[in-house]
């Protein structure tokens, strides 16, 4: 019989190992799943995780998925560091895409790529505004941000549906719920003409470095971390809680909005009813999987991007449903949370062991 025992202090090694354990367990259970569906688990896992990356095209496609994930996840990591449970990256992403798309439709005759600047800025601004709503609701009305941001996600989705079915529908588009194609000048430059990867990947990398610096070296970043770790200490030290909440949410909104507009002005090139395959939600997993550390988040977004490609690949090669992607993403998060236990606790052989309650509140004194 084994028992859990609380470690005197958190294990750093386990903090780094736990995502690897989670990934290994996901592979194991993924293999079992494939086997139970009558497929050779090794071929299936190979198809899911390796095959998509076997050529340069695959790698650039991965980069295309990493860009929005990285942007959303870096913003979310700022919120989660402050324990602001912003689940709204999806809505902020959609609003960014919708706003940027609206702007792009104003420049259908544009010749110069300079139009990208107002388009991108307006997209980011729309994402920011959407996050500002959540910030307002949280700071002014003390409404739970998990619930408000989720609701805002659904509202954003319906706003996009309304737009492509109504005012932004392409008049010459045979009544399909789609906007007109954007002008070529309003499309993000490609890194290489043979592939679909755009400069959006640089936005993501830049966001990563900027937020990394902010968190690790600045007083503002320090305050955000303290707020997340320990509200009472933040108040004790005199940090302005509401200002920090606004800051984290606005940055996240702007980054998610930028991701959204980069998506519609990138690989999509127009407004369509579904511009996000759930990037905003997947980014949540990315943040946890990446240990809220920028480098970890970079690797995690690659892995998460890979699950999208793997899903498409098994659909093509093995005619399994594409939704297997969500299944793998969910499993990863589950196993991660389970293995995270090993950071604060260790498993010992049944011996005199005792586990104290993590924190005992003073009850009624």
């Amino acid at each position, binding site marked *: 019989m084994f028992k859990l025992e609380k470690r005197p202090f958190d294990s750093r090694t386990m903090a780094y190992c736990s995502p690897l354990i989670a990934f290994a367990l996901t592979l194991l259970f993924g293999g079992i799943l494939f086997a139970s569906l009558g497929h050779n688990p090794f071929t299936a896992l190979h198809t899911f995780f390796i095959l998509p990356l076997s050529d340069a095209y695959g790698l650039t496609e991965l980069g295309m998925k990493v860009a929005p994930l990285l942007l959303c996840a870096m913003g979310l990591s700022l919120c989660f560091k402050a324990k602001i449970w912003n689940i709204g990256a999806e809505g902020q992403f959609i609003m960014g895409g919708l706003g940027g798309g609206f702007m792009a439709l104003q420049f259908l005759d544009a010749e110069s790529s300079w139009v990208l600047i107002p388009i991108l800025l307006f997209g980011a601004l729309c994402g920011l505004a959407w996050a500002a709503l959540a910030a307002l609701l949280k700071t002014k009305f003390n409404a739970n941000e998990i619930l408000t941001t989720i609701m805002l996600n659904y509202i954003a989705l319906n706003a996009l549906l309304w737009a492509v079915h109504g005012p932004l529908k392409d008049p010459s588009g045979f009544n399909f719920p789609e906007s007109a194609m954007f002008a070529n000048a309003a499309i993000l430059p490609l890194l290489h003409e043979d592939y679909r990867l755009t400069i959006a990947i640089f936005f993501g990398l830049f966001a990563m470095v900027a937020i990394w610096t902010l968190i690790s070296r600045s*007083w503002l970043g320090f305050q955000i971390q303290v707020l997340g770790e320990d509200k009472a*200490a933040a108040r004790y030290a005199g940090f302005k809680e509401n200002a920090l909440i606004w800051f984290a949410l606005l940055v996240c909104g702007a980054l998610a909005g930028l991701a959204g507009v980069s998506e519609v002005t990138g690989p999509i090139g127009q407004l369509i009813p579904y511009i996000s395959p759930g990037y905003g939600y997947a980014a949540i997993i990315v943040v946890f999987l990446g240990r809220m550390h920028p480098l970890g988040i970079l690797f995690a977004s690659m892995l998460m991007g890979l699950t999208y490609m793997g899903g498409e690949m098994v659909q093509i090669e093995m005619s399994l449903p594409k939704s297997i992607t969500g299944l793998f993403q969910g499993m990863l998060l589950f196993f991660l949370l389970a293995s995270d236990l090993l950071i604060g606790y260790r498993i010992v052989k049944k011996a005199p062991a005792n586990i104290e309650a993590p924190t005992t509140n003073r009850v009624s004194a």
Partner: protein
Amino acid sequence: MNRLALTGISKQYPGCMANDGVDLTVKQGEIHALLGENGAGKSTLMKIIYGVVKPDAGQFEWEGESISVSGPAHARRLGIGMVFQHFSLFETLTVAENIALSLPKDQSQDMTALSNRIREVSEHYGMALDPQRFVHTLSVGEQQRVEIVRCLLQDIKLLILDEPTSVLTPQEVKRLFATLNKLASEGCSILFISHKLDEVTELCHNATILRGGKVSGHCDPQAVSSHDIARMMVGDDTPLNQDFQKVEGGKVVLDIADLNYQSEDPFACTIKQLHLKVKGGEILGIAGVAGNGQDELMRLLSGEETTSADCIRLLDKNIGDLSPTARRQLGFAFVPEERLGRGAVPDMSLEQNTLLSSAHLGLLNKGWIRFDKVKALGEHILQKYKVKSAGLQAQAKSLSGGNLQKFILGREIEQNPKLLACSHPTWGVDIGAAVLIRHALIELRDQGAAIVVISEDIDELYQICDRLCAICQGEISPIKATQDVSIEQLGQWMTGQFKDVTEPAVTSEPAYV
């Protein structure tokens, strides 16, 4: 006949031997004291007796039979009752509902009958209770009565009380002792856990003293001097008592006038018409039972809650509406009651915790952190205040209570405050750290800083404070020089009787009960 006999009880926690071969015998009708410093293993031992914690080794004999207690429910069936230091009550339930939860099903079905029994029993032992009241509306003393009555409703043979007097006024303590004596005379054994020697001498028939998880002695408290008991508690190498010179302060540093405050928190205390002056170079002590407005007062002082500007003045500046940061820049520093989770961030390193409240000491450069300066300050604090830790990178939660308190106090003192507020500076701290902390406070006082200390430890207040007062229900008593305040007087102040100074100790209900 022995009611309870423990032999060789041992319990190991990760990194510490909480109980190491402890023997303990309690006879029928005996009031037995279990004495020891914080961390001596008292709490673990009684949790073992009550079945909350299982011992690793040792024998448990109950009324002559060797048994093993499987859990609190089993302990209660045996006739063992326990009153915890931090009450295990449910604040949003009524007194009767709280008691019903601890009784077997057949006794708690009929709530009317139960309510009547609660009234009956509580009156019989002189501690009246209304079964229909919600627990969060009760005073701390009354909550303790609920805990005791809960035990008395069953067929009680051994009542364990964990530091029961730490939340009571001196008058309430007297009444509790009367109840306990009555219980003992009816044949109930009582295990009384404390670290206050005078109480033990007054109440108990026998005492077992624990130190570092081991029994360091037995004695008859009436026959042995308190000095000898104290030696058994703390060992030979620790100074027992220090007397500090009392001083008169200089210029007024902190001036609180007409402070009124009503928190949004339904469980909080209202501050009423509070006046208070603290002079530079003195320590003002504020006594009081927990929950009488200490926490609210401290938050108002620190700026975690704000009020109108002129209610609080620091060195002739209105600061009532300033943020904590602004107050710190004017020379205010604060050691809060909660060390982990307010004074320090548990999961962050000591280095980061150094920065927490000291950013205004030039540790920033245009919003960027100057890590070299933070490190230097952190190292300085660790050294000067003898903080035992695995270095600056150690998480705050890995430190012992005493070491963390030394760290926090050091961090605040190193800001050279003109006014330092300190909540329960040595609560739950080992003697060595407590001595260092008191010395540091006195030293800061002698450098001319004004210091406010809030504490439930009356001995400590008498020891280090130059002037004393008490807080009750958000009101503050008169303030007098320490040597002019008798312990009876302070007790009256703690119950809200601020007027009659010369009247004898009052027997009527304290005002707030």
